[in-house]
């Protein structure tokens, strides 16, 4: 970031290659799989960094700060829309725990991947956010708690809930 603040284009390119795709995927899944909007949001966030690099709090880890800004943008978008993106209610838990073998075996297949995408979209936004940050972006619980501004216990609880709902949803589909 220090190099970027001095106008080093190579530093900017390195930053983009490290976070550009990750951020785009995050926005894509948090904004209802809308590629155009995901692109706009990704661009907007990087423009913020270009225009005001001094806004970066050097006391914090960059990834944490970056995803915090991204998460706030998503929340603002939800607020602007006046509602959370449409998500389908999931069946209650307890649907066929015995189908674990089938789930494990089929999740790698492209069709199952599509079902997983749908199931993730069906999660409530705050559960989806924690799931994506933890398992897609591989951030730590502590980082996620900073990003979503919740205690670590709440993050763990949301993760548990998300996994349980996804599991139930996928088992219902298979």
């Amino acid at each position: 970031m220090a190099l970027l603040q001095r106008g080093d284009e190579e530093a900017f390119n390195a930053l983009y290659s490290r976070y550009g795709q990750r951020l785009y995927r995050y926005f894509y899944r948090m904004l209802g799989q809308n590629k155009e909007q995901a692109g706009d949001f990704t661009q907007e966030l990087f423009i913020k960094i270009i225009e005001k690099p001094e806004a970066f709090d050097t006391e914090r880890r960059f990834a944490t700060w970056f995803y915090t800004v991204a998460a706030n943008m998503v929340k603002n978008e939800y607020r602007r829309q006046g509602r959370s993106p449409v998500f389908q209610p999931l069946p209650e838990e307890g649907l066929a725990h015995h189908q674990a073998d089938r789930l494990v075996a089929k999740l790698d297949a492209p069709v199952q991947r599509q079902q997983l995408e749908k199931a993730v979209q069906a999660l409530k936004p705050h559960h989806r956010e924690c799931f994506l940050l933890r398992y897609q972006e591989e951030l730590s619980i502590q980082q996620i708690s900073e990003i979503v501004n919740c205690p670590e216990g709440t993050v763990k609880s949301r993760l548990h809930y998300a996994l349980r709902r996804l599991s139930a949803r996928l088992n219902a589909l298979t």
Partner: protein
Amino acid sequence: MEWNTTVEACIRSKDFDALTEEERQQVLACLSQEEYEQYRALAKAGKSLGDSPIPPSSIHENLQQAFRKRYRRRNLPLPTIAMPLWQAAAVAALFLLLGKVVTWAPVHATPSVAVQMRDSLWLERVSQAMKDTAVAMLKPFDNSALAPAPRRLAFLQDSMAHVARDEEARGLLPEPAVDTPDWARRSTQIDQAYINHLYRIN
């Protein structure tokens, strides 16, 4: 059912079979093996979600353009100092005030002239009435060198007589400038006759 950090970390990183006995006990305290394996599969699948979609290349191109536009001026290899606007304004105001207070015009003083000979050098020193300023001019001293013109000589003699009178009246020689080199210092009483003699022999 307790969903603690260990259980979550295990789900993220280890298959059920790879768990240690202690971890397995903790996991089984809150989940069945089937549930663990389901969650483990989801965690792995979640990681694979990161493979797609790929952002369009136009985003990067647009951002590069924006970056170049923003930093075009700053790419000059000049050292820059970032400071708040109010500080820059304060520094500018300080310089303006200094410009008003400090006089940049040269200091004029009527010089007095001394001539001294050292070895093979003529030393014609123009010393100002102010003790701490002095200008020295060197001239080659050989047979081809011309003595000062009569009017110049008269001026020098008159000046030296004037200086000598003043110094005599005060009872001491003017202090040489502290930065005057030793060879240019006037360390003895100026001998007017000696000076005249020097001019005459040239």
